[in-house]
């Protein structure tokens, strides 16, 4: 039996038809979204700058009309990643349901796998949070947004006035705790899905995932807490 290369299009079909291919898509889109979350956190932390205008200058820099193509390119990439990530996860969930039509009367779980088993819960809640978050601080449909100049929102004032509503602050905190769980499993899982795993560095990768997840959640949660305790005010 001689071996022959399969045409690239058919390779892609074969790749995505297999669950391993779908997991690889989830891993790659996961890396993109993880990278964005890290960048977003670094942007957010500028709210603590002694210079109160720092975060507004950063926002103006991102929204500079001269770089509109880049901004919309990044937004399109993120949207595409989210859609691919969710599509693959739903397809895998369907496969899971088909693979065990009759369940167990009694089923125990490994306690260490809590984050992994709750991915299907943390995921949709985080997705709902992202929609709320965009409506709140980008579109301004939840609370009226304050602006420094036309089309130039006063980010600092909007964040602070938003988190002065305890319900809004609480939703942000809960969503970040779920993001922490999601990343705790996800960041390690993307290495495993892409086949990067070896007894020598598995523990290191798991520790890296835990540190990233906790650091991202703690950094973001600190902002609503700082507003509610009065450390950050207008």
């Amino acid at each position, binding site marked *: 039996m001689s071996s022959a290369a*399969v045409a*690239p299009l058919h*390779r892609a079909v074969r*790749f995505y038809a297999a669950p391993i291919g779908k997991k690889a898509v989830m891993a790659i889109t996961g890396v993109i979204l993880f990278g964005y979350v890290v960048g977003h956190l670094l942007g957010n932390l500028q709210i603590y700058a002694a210079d109160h205008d720092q975060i507004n200058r950063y926002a103006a820099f991102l929204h500079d009309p001269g770089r509109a193509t880049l901004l919309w390119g990044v937004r399109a990439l993120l949207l595409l990643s989210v859609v691919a990530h969710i599509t693959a996860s739903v397809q895998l969930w369907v496969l899971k349901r088909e693979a065990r039509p*009759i369940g167990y009367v009694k089923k125990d779980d490994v306690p260490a796998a809590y984050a992994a088993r709750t991915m299907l819960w943390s995921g949709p809640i985080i997705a709902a949070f992202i929609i709320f978050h965009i409506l709140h601080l980008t579109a301004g449909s939840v609370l009226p947004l304050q602006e420094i100049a036309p089309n130039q929102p006063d980010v600092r004032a909007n964040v602070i006035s938003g988190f002065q509503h305890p319900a809004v602050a609480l939703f942000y905190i809960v969503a970040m705790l779920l993001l922490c769980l999601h990343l705790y499993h996800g960041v390690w899982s993307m290495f495993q899905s892409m086949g990067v795993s070896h007894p020598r560095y598995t523990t290191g990768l798991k520790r890296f995932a835990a540190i990233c997840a906790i650091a991202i959640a703690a950094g973001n949660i600190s902002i609503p807490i700082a507003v509610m305790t009065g450390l950050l005010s207008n």
Partner: protein
Amino acid sequence: MRLTLHIWRQRNAQEKGRMVRYEVPNVNQDMSFLEMLDVLNEDLIAKGEEPVAFDHDCREGICGMCGFMINGVAHGPLRGTTVCQLHMRHFRDGQELYLEPWRARAFPVMRDLVVNRSAFDRLIAAGGFISVSTGSAPDGNAILVPKENCDRAMDAAACIGCGACVAMCPNASASLFMGAKISHLGLLPQGRPERDKRVVAMVSQSIAEKFGSCTNIGECEAVCPKEIRLEVIARMNRDFLRATWTGRGVSRDEAEQVSNNSLAESRR
């Protein structure tokens, strides 16, 4: 000691089964779990009832024949053990235990705690072998194998194919089993030439058998009686991604068939 058992009873593959409660009053703590079921079955036979069917063979924990769920854990609460080597001293007097067969679409229940695991045989037939003619045994050290690879291949080769990984997996995935075979063969020079073909064939067979997908949860690793590690699944993923990326691992005939099928689909 005295135990209360809830056991899945099902007369054949067609019939709907149910949980039935049994009392076992005279359990010796030195019995293995299967010996305890033997005692229950002797009582049932004496009473003229059908004994509980369960798979077993060597009763030494090395053949892979036995296995069922005890209180929702494959092979019961003791790690790294099959039910035949699980002794009753690990249970308490008066404990209530739920015994259920492996549950997966690919493992249909045949009777009581016995499931049909032929799907595993078909996975092996698809690619879990080395097809080169080995002839007579080669001279020792004629083929050099790094010590680390040798150890890791041996660890993966410890898989006895009991099916606990599929049973415990929330997705009913056979990834730990497939990964064990792929690592066992792929880590050794004799198995490397067919690495691409093997992974492509086994993965497509597992889709046909309706096994689920791996979502990296790790419940399989926790219950595996041979303590096979999740790293074997990463190796399978790596081999699969490599084979699909390069388009290797498909025979010329199959490649043409794949191309024709895709063409036909795109015309439809």
